[in-house]
């Protein structure tokens, strides 16, 4: 079963940053990786992300599910480039993928890997509450932040529900994992119908809980328990992020 909760409250400089600075830092890594098209620059950004993960003392076991997904997708993107790109010279003399295709495939793979590792870094150093704070600081509307956080909170329980439904079906002799691709796809509906039905039974309870706390009333100014303070280091990270993105967009290394 997957888990979104890879956050660990450690005492590292990265954990101590303001949530907005954490968001800016990881978004900067992702944006610069998308802007660059050179392999060496990409490798440099990958090294920077690995260094940040090391600085955050992120254990490999927590990051592994993300790396696995990234590697799988990297291979698929790489195949797309290697098979469908014919510009440049073939790398094996007169046959095989071209040099352009190999470089583009490597850059595409790196892009996926860096973006996923940066996302994992953000989730490792930022708690759900901090993520909400960070998004608010970046001027994302409160209702949008709250909805995102609520769905994040609901993810584990729904995943558990789906697992229970599947186990119950397997107990009755229903084979979910066997059969052809089409058969598995067709059988998946037997898990989705009860999942949706169970999930939406919670609507009333959740809505009442929100309304009893006067959620989203017009003219009400929301206050927060935690004070969101930007220290010098946070301002440096935010300003640095803006400068780095601007430099990459202008220079396009």
């Amino acid at each position: 079963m997957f888990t979104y909760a890879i956050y660990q409250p450690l005492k590292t400089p990265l954990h101590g940053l303001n949530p907005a600075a954490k968001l800016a830092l990881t978004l900067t890594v992702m944006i610069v990786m998308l802007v660059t098209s050179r392999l060496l620059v990409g490798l440099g950004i990958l090294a920077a992300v690995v260094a940040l993960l090391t600085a955050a003392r992120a254990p490999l076991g927590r990051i592994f599910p993300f790396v696995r997904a990234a590697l799988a997708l990297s291979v698929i993107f790489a195949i797309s480039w290697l098979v469908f790109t014919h510009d440049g010279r073939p790398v094996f003399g007169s046959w095989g993928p071209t040099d352009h295709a190999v470089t583009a495939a490597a850059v595409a793979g790196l892009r996926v890997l860096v973006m996923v590792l940066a996302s994992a870094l953000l989730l490792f150093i930022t708690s759900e509450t901090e993520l909400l704070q960070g998004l608010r600081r970046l001027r994302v509307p409160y209702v949008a932040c709250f909805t995102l956080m609520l769905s994040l909170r609901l993810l584990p329980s729904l995943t558990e529900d789906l697992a229970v439904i599947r186990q119950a079906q397997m107990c009755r002799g229903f084979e979910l994992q066997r059969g052809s691709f089409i058969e598995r796809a067709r059988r998946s509906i037997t898990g989705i119908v009860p999942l949706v039905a169970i999930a939406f039974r919670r609507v009333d309870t959740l809505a009442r809980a929100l309304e009893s706390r006067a959620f989203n009333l017009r003219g009400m100014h929301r206050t927060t328990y935690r004070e969101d303070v930007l220290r010098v280091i946070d301002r440096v990270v935010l300003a640095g992020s803006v400068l780095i993105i601007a430099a990459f967009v202008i220079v396009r290394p």
Partner: protein
Amino acid sequence: MAEERPQRGRAGAIQIVIVALSSAIYAVLGIAGATFTVAPGGIVIFYLPAIFIYPAAIWFGAWGVLGAFFGTLLFSPFFGYGFALGLSFAVVDMISPTTVGLAQRALRVNPAVVTTRRDFILFAVAVIVGAAIEAVIGNGVLLVFGLTSVGGLPFSTFVWWTGEVTAGVILSPILLRVLTPQFKRMGLFHQSFFGTQRGARIIG
């Protein structure tokens, strides 16, 4: 059932919860569906969340469609996209359910689309057209981010479209057929696509 606020277009507690639940279901199905075979270009051959999101667009209007936005954002790191690319796909993934939700209301299709042949055909056409638009734009995003090649575009666009259409046309009607009466009783239907007016009275 919690009291409905009369403000049209402004999200009340019910709408917030619907968006959150739709997002969470979409994300759970997205992660579960990642095990299905993926084609070159990073496209899933059978897109499991599509089974849910088309009915959600019909039941809850824009509030259900928003589930595709937040859901995609949530499962993007587990899918191998990361948040930056996930944000782009979050917008793209709203295209086909929006098409279906709007078409259902404009053409007055019964939410339980399998009741008549006309309703099913109109639903299927909306899914096919919406998925085609989404596949073209989605693969355009992949191309802009340098993740797929120009030569690979026709193939990955076709696979994206097929993944959406097979899930939407074949399996979504089952969900609509089974759960529409239940949501009708619960008063969760949204009569207009962008509004907050709910009730048992439904189009069709």
